[in-house]
């Protein structure tokens, strides 16, 4: 996923270590299933074959695709997992020149019975804007199922926690940390597409593509979305960044809230 994953948990001593291992195993599994880069992944198989024959996918891939399509529907295409050819064109994802011909929109994705995926035309799906949130969710479920009383999973700014007490959530900025909220249980995700790590990366650390403009979103600052699950928070940061405060009715439908921060020094939640 190209990010650090941080897991911490407390609970009965005998099970905590086991739970944390299980949580990391879940994250790795999501990566294996949904990586755009790995030709063996479920997703790569869908990208290669699903425009010819419907492909059966793993229940987790299925869960992510279903949510992605639902969010695309609710946001009228502001969130769209079919923007991958644009990312290839910009050099952010690997691919050949003919990738740019493989264009479709979310409406061309068909989710059929028995977890079969069919693409109406040749196109490329990329779950980069949602799978990380899902990985955090399954890791949290592993901690809960194992009997932990408190747990936090943070994958580069996509964070979910549960526990008896509220904990501070900080926004990392170039000049330090700023507390933005207190979270007892639930998820928080941040997107700060223009943020550049000074002196370390020449490129922005994240990108949001605007399906309306067919190019990189040019807004600045950061948006932070809180939601009951991280998969929703992760995906909705893109909607919230592109639509601004106008998307609040959409967020409400998913039980989410957003905060916008126009200060370009903002980087990511931690």
């Amino acid at each position: 996923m190209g990010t650090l994953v941080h897991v911490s948990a407390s609970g009965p001593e005998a099970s905590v270590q086991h739970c944390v291992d299980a949580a990391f195993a879940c994250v790795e599994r999501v990566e294996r299933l949904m990586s755009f880069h790995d030709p063996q992944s479920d997703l790569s198989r869908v990208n290669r074959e699903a425009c010819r024959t419907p492909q059966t996918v793993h229940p987790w891939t299925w869960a992510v695709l279903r949510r992605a399509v639902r969010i695309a529907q609710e946001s009228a295409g502001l969130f769209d997992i079919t923007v991958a050819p644009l990312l290839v064109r910009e050099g952010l994802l690997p691919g050949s020149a003919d990738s740019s011909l493989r264009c479709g929109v979310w409406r061309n994705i068909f989710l059929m019975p028995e977890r079969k995926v069919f693409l109406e035309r040749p196109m490329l799906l990329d779950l980069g804007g949602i799978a990380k949130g899902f990985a955090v969710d399954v890791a949290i479920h592993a901690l809960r199922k194992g009997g932990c009383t408190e747990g936090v999973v943070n994958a580069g700014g996509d964070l979910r926690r549960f526990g008896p007490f509220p904990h501070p959530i900080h926004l990392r900025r170039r000049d330090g940390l700023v507390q933005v909220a207190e979270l007892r249980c639930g998820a928080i995700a941040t997107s700060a597409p223009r943020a550049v790590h000074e002196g370390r990366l020449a490129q922005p650390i994240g990108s949001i593509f605007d399906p309306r403009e067919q190019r990189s979103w040019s807004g600045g600052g950061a948006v932070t979305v809180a939601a009951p699950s991280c998969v929703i928070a992760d995906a909705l940061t893109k909607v919230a960044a592109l639509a601004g405060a106008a998307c609040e009715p959409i967020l409400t439908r998913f039980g989410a809230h957003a905060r916008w921060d126009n200060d370009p020094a903002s980087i990511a939640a931690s």
Partner: protein
Amino acid sequence: MSLDLRWLAPAAIYAIAPQCIAAKYMSVDQARTLIFPAADEYVAKPVQLTPEQMQEIDKLSGVAGRSPRQQVWQAISKGKMIGWFIVDQVIGKHELITYALGINVDGSVRQFQVIEYLEAYGSQVRYLNWRDQFVGKTIESPLRIDSDIANISGATLSARHLTDGIKRLLFLHQSVLR
């Protein structure tokens, strides 16, 4: 699945950002509840040590105290005293660590909690398995890093200073709280 979140006021968010990675992990009330879940009342018993008492505690524990004043509470459950609750500070590497120690009536450690940690590194001292080593320790215990308390690589100074702080509080309990 649920969301239990409180946003801070925007003014608080955009105030000047702190320069170091500070974390307040819990309030004093939360620490009390974690250490003495059964207690229904806390009676404040602030301690003001005389210079002689300070000296005596320093000598017995082998650890120099930082201040003659100490924030102390008695934890009471159903009218009966079940232990002492002390909030104290020690230096980590450069900054203060605020922690709370619960002491049983018999003078053994009940548990401790890190309330606030102001340094960028070394917050592993908060981990339960490290803190659990202190449970049941008394003034008879060596309370020394690498002897009865495991060191934490990357948090050596924080671990050592917390261990010293707890040792000193146990002697303070023996000298003035019994």
